[in-house]
């Protein structure tokens, strides 16, 4: 790559005034091919690469160099149909196993339940239902547990000793939180514009936040403890 300077002499006009200038050195062309193959979402043909590169480049030759460079490496330059692509070396496929995931969005019921657990943990099923105003289907919490975002907490020491639910480290990791206590309160959500503001909303009494305090035995537990004083 030490020959990049050569290149620079011709650089100012490279993009536009193409044909006036010499083609970049082969090593530089190899870099280009490498970058293109890496970033492209599809295999690239030599013609496609040539069309993108400065005038006078010979991607076919650069490709041969690159191909040789990657011989025996963890990835290979491979022919795919008419084009070329970078692929994992066949013997290292076992490292990729976890890469295969299909993303699906959580249902509304699930995300609401998850939010309630995050904000009110440890929380019992009855409390979740009370807050949501709908009876939670057993499957919803189960799904969250299966996802590794929710786990059982201690049993609540009230009559019937109901199980409680809490969020997991996996939950915190997924949502980029250090601690569930760092989740913003309703007032902060509103200030951040995250609350759907229906007309009545702006003047709605700030009750809900204070009240979260009540949910916990100790008022200082409130997420927005400041208002309790």
């Amino acid at each position: 790559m030490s020959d990049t300077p050569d290149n620079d002499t011709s650089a100012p006009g490279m993009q536009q005034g193409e044909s006036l200038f010499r083609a970049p050195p082969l090593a530089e062309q190899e870099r280009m091919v490498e970058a293109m193959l890496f970033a492209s979402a599809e295999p690239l043909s030599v013609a496609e690469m040539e069309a993108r590169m400065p005038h006078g480049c010979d991607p076919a030759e650069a490709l041969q160099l690159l191909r040789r460079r990657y011989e025996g490496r963890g990835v290979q330059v491979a022919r795919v149909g008419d084009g070329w692509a970078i692929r994992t070396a066949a013997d290292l496929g076992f490292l990729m196993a976890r890469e295969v995931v299909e993303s699906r969005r959580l249902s509304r019921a699930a995300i609401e339940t998850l939010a309630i657990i995050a904000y009110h943990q440890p929380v019992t099923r009855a409390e979740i239902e009370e807050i949501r105003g709908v009876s939670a289907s057993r499957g919803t919490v189960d799904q969250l547990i299966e996802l590794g975002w929710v786990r059982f907490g201690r049993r609540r020491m009230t009559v019937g000793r109901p199980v409680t639910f809490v969020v997991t480290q996996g939950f915190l990791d997924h949502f980029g939180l250090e601690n569930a206590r760092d989740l913003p309160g309703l007032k902060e959500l509103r200030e951040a514009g995250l609350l759907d503001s229906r007309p009545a909303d702006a003047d709605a009494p700030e009750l809900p936040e204070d009240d979260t305090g009540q949910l916990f035995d100790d008022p200082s537990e409130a997420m927005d403890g400041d208002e309790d004083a």
Partner: protein
Amino acid sequence: MADTPVPANEAEEWDAVASRRAAEALVVDVDGFEGPLDLLLSLARTQKVDLRQISILALTEQYLAFIEEARALRLELAADYLVMAAWLAYLKSRLLVPAEVSDDGPSAEDMAAHLAFQLERLAAMRDCAAKLMARDRLGQDRFVRGMPEATGTARRVDYTASLIDLLQAYARVRTRDDFRPYAMDRDEILTLEQALERLRPLVGDLAEWTDLMSFLPDGWTMDPKRRRTATAANFAAALELVKAGRLSLRQSETFAPIHLKRKDDA
């Protein structure tokens, strides 16, 4: 609000024509300013000196003149511009009058210095923002792998939700009630009879002191209204049971938790 007319002596000190021209250019733009600090910073730049050497007094004049002009042109100014004008007018008067001895609050010089600091800090953040945006950015100058490898054997479904989804879901749930039309909800009240009926069979095996609050029925502990009525009903029911000689009550001090226990010698 502000002491309005541009005072004679200072105003002479800077070129009236040039400043007027600058002010006009700014007036046209008034909507483009993001608040008074932004406006002040723009005005400060017209002084063509390092922000550290800025004359706060001159800046104050410039700002007040600008506000005057905007008013003359009947431009609508947001309240915070006027608040700033009032504050600057006050600052100006303090800067012009020799310091009074007794004052407890920050001196005029401190106030001016802090304003200068705020301007410098805002300018610095603007520079940083520009530098940041000028970096080689992902998706524009630098690129990620176009074909992340997904040679699939073990296919797994990954449920995703963003933090925003989560926050919005919570806000939705918690504010649902705010929008409900008002109605008298009888089922929001736990009656003494209900509480008594529930409590009576439970106290029989109550050998240990137990917090009254732990007897609130499921579904009556979260919502504050329900919690309140359930607490009251439970307390009243407990008193009934004490009267009936089945229960002892204990409270260590005012507002401490109330504890219940089976009356052993019954």
